[in-house]
């Protein structure tokens, strides 16, 4: 019987793993090694309600330390793990202290991709990953200031929405021809571009940043085409890098993320990897594997790992899902659209309530992007998970309800 389980990390995945292990009946030693000096907290609000001030720190914290103590989880908040020794089955903190394990869960998360241009280290240039980042950015987000957002992905768009509402002057710079180019179809990109422009945001696409300008702090962002956009502060949101080094240095398979099997187990049977740091088989998408940067993925892999460690049946995998809040718009995405050959729009984008369904050549549903459209999202998510087929014409027909559509797939 296992008596020592160590979890490296203290984010959403780590929290769920600890919770699921205890709920599943594990009563041995359970150690959580975080390095942010705070109890585990949620990241999604950092670019939304926490940044706007609508949600305070106490509400972002997932569970207070007393609740961890009641669950008999030994929580370390300043534990930077510097090495993993698979032979002795131990991890070591920077201060030299060692934790032995029977099973190890790596929930090391990810870090922001740094802007690779001159001036990126100037004061006033922000990233957004941690509460500390959000506090630093929030302090500088004052009415009338000029914010330049580098990167038109979810983080950039969500911060732009909060900043606009707070009365800042906002410009988004995107290298691709449209925002959300990597994650959404053109109709969704167009929708969000219009939404932000209508709110007063300037969006420049197809632009390359060549330097951040300023003496002791940022004063502008220089573009490769010679223009300079004046700025009082800059937010960089150009993606994340999985924290896979600890695993890689210990000899675990980890190219883009720590590779796991269906049980979230790595190439070492005593070690699991979950959340942003892991590359998992995408069960609903043939033989593909990949990293999924989402809360749902963190929670699901945590449950898979806990079940595998406890020898319990594997939970059923849902379709991957994501969400984003901007202004009064809720975007809910289920599935992965890679490989889709056709997309069907249901509803009217000008009404701010519609969905885009992505189908393969056999009309199998691969993904749905739903704007203020929960029925489309929920039914779509269920149909994706059972690999159901949908007739495009029927899908586009608003006189047929999503319940009826779901029942026929």
């Amino acid at each position: 019987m296992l008596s020592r389980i160590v979890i490296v990390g203290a984010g959403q995945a780590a929290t769920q793993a600890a919770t699921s292990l205890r709920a599943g009946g594990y009563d041995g030693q359970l150690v959580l090694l975080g390095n942010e000096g705070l109890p585990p907290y949620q990241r999604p609000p950092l670019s939304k309600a926490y940044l706007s001030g609508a949600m305070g720190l106490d509400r972002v914290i997932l569970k207070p330390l007393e609740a961890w103590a009641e669950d008999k989880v030994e929580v370390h908040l300043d534990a930077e793990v510097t090495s993993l020794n698979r032979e002795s089955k131990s991890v070591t903190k920077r201060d030299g202290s060692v934790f032995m394990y029977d099973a190890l869960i790596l929930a090391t998360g990810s870090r922001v991709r740094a802007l690779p241009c001159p001036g990126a280290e100037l004061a006033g240039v922000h990233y957004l990953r941690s509460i500390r980042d959000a506090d630093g950015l929030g302090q500088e987000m004052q009415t009338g200031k000029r914010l330049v957002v580098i990167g038109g992905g979810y983080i950039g768009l969500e911060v732009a929405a909060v900043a606009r509402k707070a009365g800042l002057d906002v410009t988004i710079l995107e290298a691709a021809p449209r925002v959300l180019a990597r994650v959404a179809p053109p109709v969704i990109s167009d929708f969000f571009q219009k939404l932000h422009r209508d709110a007063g945001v300037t969006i420049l696409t197809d632009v390359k940043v060549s330097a951040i300008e300023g003496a002791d702090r940022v004063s502008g962002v220089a573009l490769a085409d010679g223009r300079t956009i004046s700025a009082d502060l800059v937010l960089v949101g150009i993606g994340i890098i999985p924290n896979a080094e600890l695993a890689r240095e210990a000899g675990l398979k980890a190219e883009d993320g720590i590779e796991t099997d269906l049980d979230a187990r790595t190439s070492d049977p005593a070690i699991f990897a979950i959340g942003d740091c892991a590359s998992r088989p995408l069960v609903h998408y043939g033989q593909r594997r990949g990293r999924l940067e989402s809360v749902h993925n963190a929670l699901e892999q945590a449950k898979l790992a806990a079940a595998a460690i406890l020898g319990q049946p594997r939970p059923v995998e849902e379709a991957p899902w994501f969400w984003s809040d901007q202004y009064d718009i809720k975007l809910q995405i289920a599935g992965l659209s890679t490989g889709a050959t056709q997309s069907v729009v249901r509803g009217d984008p000008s009404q701010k309530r519609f969905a885009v369904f992505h189908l393969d050549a056999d009309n199998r549903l691969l993904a749905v992007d739903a704007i203020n459209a929960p029925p489309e999202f929920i039914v779509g998510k269920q149909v994706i998970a059972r690999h159901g087929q949908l007739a495009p014409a029927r899908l586009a027909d608003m006189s047929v309800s999503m319940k009826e559509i779901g029942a026929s797939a």
Partner: protein
Amino acid sequence: MAKVTYIEHSGTEHVIDVPVGTTIMEGAVKNRVPGIDADCGGACACATCHVFVDAAWIEKTGKPGSMEESMLDFAEGVTPLSRLSCQISMTPDLDGIVVRLPAAQH
């Protein structure tokens, strides 16, 4: 603080003091009440915090918003007493509220 009684599907009761201004979902999650998953953390994005509000209290919780209503429409075993607990903010008026939890959220 205002009191919330959570009754698990098994019948186990938990009486919790929940800060006014926070939600019934948060009161459950932070106090280890099993049966409310709240995968999205309260963003009204996932419908995994479904509860049945005691009939005596349902009026006081107000009407669900349109997003909540359409999410709830797809929850398992939904009734006129169904709410998403992340969308009920505690007020002094709700002191003593009773909510029952469904068998499963997924």
